[in-house]
């Protein structure tokens, strides 16, 4: 049985990844999951310098999911390279580094700094964080801006580039096409959907940032639809995510057209989720006699 998939020349032992920002750099989940069993660890977003993120409360629960407004707190690329990448050296899994910034230059600085890091297999460019005003509006919701930042990153990047798309757009197909046209090696989607919660007893927003990103099972139908639309708009590989809780969900994304998938908020519900998804995919393949996971991709037309 073959569960391995390839994206831009990088071979993953299976299609199961961690969604950026929900798994630290793997360190925090090493007690629960054997990282060697995962297709890839996708790290929390890292910027050129340390970011303090947003005030608290930063997270709140909603029906079938959660809202977060972490605001991309991160220790900066230097600490990240010396600590998190070093930690990941010992593991036999691919490493995708999620990159964030407030200006094109910020992004370029991180991409260049990581260019010679051997432990970095791919870069995922987060132009879609709804919790950082600059990042989201400027790059992730206008196709011209997305095209621009993608092509500028491609000029300097040594690793293949995944553009992470925002679902908060009228046409995901248009955004996917812009990324592809600008040379992105792959796209990943969806980032969180902007949401809000009000505490009617305290008469306050549940999050200090007022709005936050919705994730978890609640958003899965939207994510599957967008993966399907993107898969029909572009030819580059897609990493699908949004509410994946088990192998059935993962296979749904693959059948919609994703080459790989990532588990996000459901790690918080069950820290073993990623490994269970890996096992569950194999069970599904055995049950239905699927020899190669790649046969399932986009099978539902």
């Amino acid at each position, binding site marked *: 049985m073959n569960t391995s998939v390839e994206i831009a020349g990088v071979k993953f032992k299976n299609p199961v990844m961690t969604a950026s*920002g*929900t*798994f*630290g750099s793997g360190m*925090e*989940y090493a*007690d*629960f999951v054997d990282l060697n069993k995962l297709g890839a660890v996708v790290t*929390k977003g890292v910027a050129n310098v*340390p*970011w*303090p*993120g947003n005030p*608290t*409360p*930063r*997270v*709140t*629960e909603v*029906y*079938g*999911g*959660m809202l*977060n407004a*972490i605001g991309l*707190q991160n*220790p*900066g690329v230097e*600490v990240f390279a010396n600590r998190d990448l070093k930690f990941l050296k010992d593991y036999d899994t691919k490493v995708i580094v999620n990159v964030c910034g407030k200006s094109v230059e910020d992004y370029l600085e991180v991409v260049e700094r990581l260019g010679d890091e051997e432990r970095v297999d791919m870069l995922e460019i987060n132009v879609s964080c709804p919790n950082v005003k600059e990042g989201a509006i400027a790059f992730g919701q206008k196709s011209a801006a997305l095209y621009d930042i993608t092509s500028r990153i491609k000029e300097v990047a040594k690793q293949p580039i995944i553009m992470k798309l925002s679902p908060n757009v009228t046409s995901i197909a248009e955004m996917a096409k812009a990324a592809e046209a600008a040379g992105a090696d792959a796209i990943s989607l969806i980032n969180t959907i902007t949401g809000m919660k009000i505490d009617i007893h305290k008469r306050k927003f549940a999050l200090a940032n007022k709005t936050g990103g919705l994730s*978890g*099972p609640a958003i899965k139908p939207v994510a599957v639809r967008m993966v399907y639309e993107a898969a029909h708009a572009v030819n580059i590989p897609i990493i699908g995510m949004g509410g994946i809780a088990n192998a059935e969900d993962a296979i749904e994304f693959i059948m919609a057209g994703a080459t790989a998938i990532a588990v996000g*908020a*459901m*790690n*918080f*519900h*069950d*820290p*073993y989720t990623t490994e269970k998804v890996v096992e569950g995919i194999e069970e599904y393949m055995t049950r239905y006699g699927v020899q190669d996971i790649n046969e399932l991709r986009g099978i539902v037309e």
Partner: protein
Amino acid sequence: MSKKSMAAARVLSQNLLAEGIYDLWLETPIAQDACPGQFVGVYPTNKSTLLPRPISICEVDKERSAIRLVYRVVGSGTAEFALYQPEDYIKILGVLGNGFPLEAAAGKKVVVMGGGIGVPPLLETAKRLAAAETAVKPVKVSAVMGYRNSETFLSEEFAKYADMFTATEDGSIGTKGNVIDAMREQNIEADVIFACGPMPMLRAIKNYAQEKGIKAYLSLEERMACGVGACLGCICKTTKVDHHSHVNNARICTDGPVFDADDLDM
């Protein structure tokens, strides 16, 4: 540090302690490693709510391999917990957080202070301090617990391990006012304070401790998602750049929930 896990725990007993306050004993291997001031994440089974609820460890019984949780019903998760019956199984994540640095009380006069639903974690703290071996034993253990009114809970149990003082907002029992009022009124001496409670109380303790030159360790609360340090949801502001975050933020779930008051920007 012991390995974290998520596993089923068996309900041994559940009792109502005071209005809306429940006392739940769970059988779990986590008991072997649990320290006072640490907490567990309790998962509701209601599938509309997916995140674990952080609840402090109130007491540990290694022999029965059991932990005790004392919690207040405030929302859907805790309302569900209140329905659990002996022999039910529930899922918990743990053991989480750092716990109180008991060794800091060695040879000192220590006061454990709790307010409202911050009271429970101090019970195991007082118990271990009272039972400490000679070399690390505090010279005196006092407990000052603050409640809203006469609906107090755990008071008698504290009295087993510490000189027990009570403060109530409405003055119905002990000192009228908060835990600091009780400290002053009762002239309670302290070299070290271990405290847990609402933010205004913790702020008052920090100020009081600074004023009196007392070392204070405070247990904080914040909304959590992962409970294991991955999501960066639960941070508090620190005076110094934190070793992990490299900004002035520490993760309450992992670097805390107990912090040296001097390190907190509150």
